[in-house]
């Protein structure tokens, strides 16, 4: 309570950069909670529309365009439909877990949203207001820990449904998510080595300080993280838990109405969360490019809004990327998924940790401070590594069409194919 009296006494001389008092903090937290989660829930609802519109665009169709102008109210109509549909509860299901599973799939994605920093701190008349709901000292570990719980929803849905396809989907998801969680965590260790701390704020600050985004200085870690993030969210090309051609729809075969829909919302919520994480960890987060005014502690409100818009744009780009990939790549086979995770991504991430740590030791010993030069050296090394990566670990070696790597001649023939229509029709004419 002493904080409150302090704030009353010091009202005339409050430092806009200083910590905020209790009651304004509570009020701002309430406002932030409402704004962030309203945007989140609306965004997730409209992601379903975005997915259908973008897929239509990619496939040269119209997409939903009946409800509202250009199909704008389609998510609303879908929501109403899902609420009004009959809730089925098949016999022989484990009732408690059948009902619990959709919630357990959804809640982790929502929870992570709390720790993502959305903008520069605002130097308000009441003190510094951080544009994050909870600035945890373990921010980043919290996100991995909570994300790892998302698997329970899917596993339990599969098990509780008492259906062999659902169970297979659930088992696939648990194996898949546990496998890719490891390479995901390992891919983030170079980011932590750079930041020297685990709070998401420090990761954003470090990228601003180096004037280079982590995607440039730690490219391989970014690639491993990106692939793992697709696997963690069960999106194509890794949507094995619900592979329609094999498992009907996998873990949510027995679900109907809003419970079914909740799995979809969970998938989109996970995508949104992962996109925001990628933007924060590898693309500078809310940091405004080519500007240092936003990195000097708390800033004015327009600047805060600008930084939030930048963070939002980055997140939206990765959401688009998720959808883009879904309508571009076919699904992996299960053994390919496992061999990619364990035999390629994990060793790659581990080797990369050694390379980054060694290089950091060398550069620190050489007395180069963690600025632009440091980043540029890393950029050069990563360019070389990426070149090696693409030359030596290309398609025939990473994911082969069969268990064994491709035969050399077959590989040569496949590489010779250009995707132009004339060439392909000539091939089929043989």
């Amino acid at each position, binding site marked *: *309570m002493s904080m409150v009296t302090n704030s009353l006494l010091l009202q005339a001389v409050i430092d806009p950069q200083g910590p905020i008092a209790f009651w304004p903090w509570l009020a701002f937290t309430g406002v932030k909670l409402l704004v962030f989660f309203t945007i989140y829930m609306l965004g997730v609802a409209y992601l379903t529309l975005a997915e259908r519109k973008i897929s239509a665009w990619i496939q040269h169709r119209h997409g939903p365009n009946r409800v509202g102008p250009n199909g704008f109210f389609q998510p609303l109509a879908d929501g109403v439909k899902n609420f009004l549909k009959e809730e089925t509860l098949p016999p022989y299901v*484990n009732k408690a*877990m059948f009902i619990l599973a959709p919630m357990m799939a959804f809640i982790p994605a929502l929870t992570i949203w709390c720790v993502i920093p959305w903008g520069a701190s605002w130097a308000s008349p009441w003190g510094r207001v951080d544009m994050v709901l909870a600035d*945890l*000292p*373990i921010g980043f*570990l*919290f996100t*991995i*820990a*909570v*994300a*790892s*719980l998302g*698997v*329970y929803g899917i*596993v*339990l849905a*599969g*098990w509780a449904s008492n259906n062999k396809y659902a*169970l297979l989907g*659930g*088992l696939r998801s*648990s*194996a898949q*998510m*546990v496998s890719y*969680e490891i390479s995901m965590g390992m891919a983030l260790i170079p980011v*932590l080595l750079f930041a020297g*701390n*685990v*709070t998401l704020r420090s990761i954003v600050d470090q990228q601003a300080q180096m004037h280079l985004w982590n995607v440039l200085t730690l490219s391989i870690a970014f690639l491993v993280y990106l692939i793992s993030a697709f696997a963690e969210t069960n999106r194509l090309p890794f949507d094995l838990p619900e592979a329609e051609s094999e498992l009907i729809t996998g873990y949510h075969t027995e679900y109907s109405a809003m419970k079914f829909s909740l799995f979809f919302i969970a998938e989109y919520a996970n995508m949104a969360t992962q996109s925001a994480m990628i933007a924060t960890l590898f693309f500078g987060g809310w940091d405004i490019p080519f500007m240092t005014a936003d990195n000097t502690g708390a800033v004015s409100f327009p600047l805060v809004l600008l930084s939030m818009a930048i963070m939002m744009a980055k997140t939206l780009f990765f959401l688009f990327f998720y959808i883009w990939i879904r309508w571009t790549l076919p699904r992996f086979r299960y053994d390919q998924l496992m061999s990619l995770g364990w035999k390629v991504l994990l060793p790659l991430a581990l080797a990369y940790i050694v390379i980054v740590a060694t290089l950091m030791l060398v550069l620190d010993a050489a007395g180069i401070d963690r600025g632009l030069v440091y980043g540029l050296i890393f950029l050069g090394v990563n360019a070389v590594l990426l070149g090696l990566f693409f030359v030596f670990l290309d398609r025939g070696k990473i994911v082969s069409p069969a268990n064994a790597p491709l035969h050399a001649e077959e590989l040569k023939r496949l590489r010779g194919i250009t995707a132009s229509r004339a060439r392909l029709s000539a091939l089929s004419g043989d």
Partner: protein
Amino acid sequence: MSDFFYRVHFYLFGLIAIASALAFVTRKSPVAAALWLVNTMFSLAALYVMLDAHFIGAIQVLVYAGAIMVVFLFVLMLLNLGHPNEISDIRGTWGRVAAGFVGLAILAQVMALAGSVAPKALVQPAGAAAESLRELNAVGTIAKPLFEEHLLAFELTSILLLVAIVGAVILGKRRAS
């Protein structure tokens, strides 16, 4: 005020942990039991965070609740374990009574330990945890002693784990005929 909140949360998570642990040992269905264990670990993680051990709390959720228990569930779902009464380790009335006594003995030991005074070297001055959190951040608080004072023990532990993994792989591998 903050002391009040602390107390409320301590008892809340403590009660959840104990209730879930009881549910864990009494459930007949292995999957339900495993889920109650997850709940216990979750509340323990909350208690760790309340003791300023943020890192341990996160790792508790990440490793135990997020990875190990998922693998447990995976195995439980794959194995068709049959009737719960047949897979129980403890059978018969006398077995249960004996198990109850062992449990009470362990409880008594814990109570006795809780009442005793810890050696001075183990007691941190008030506010030390918050101080080291500010200075070394959440991970450094663990990493500094682990990699400076207890490096040998840490490396030996990792070798032990490696040996266990190699052993599991060899045991799990089918003999070449």
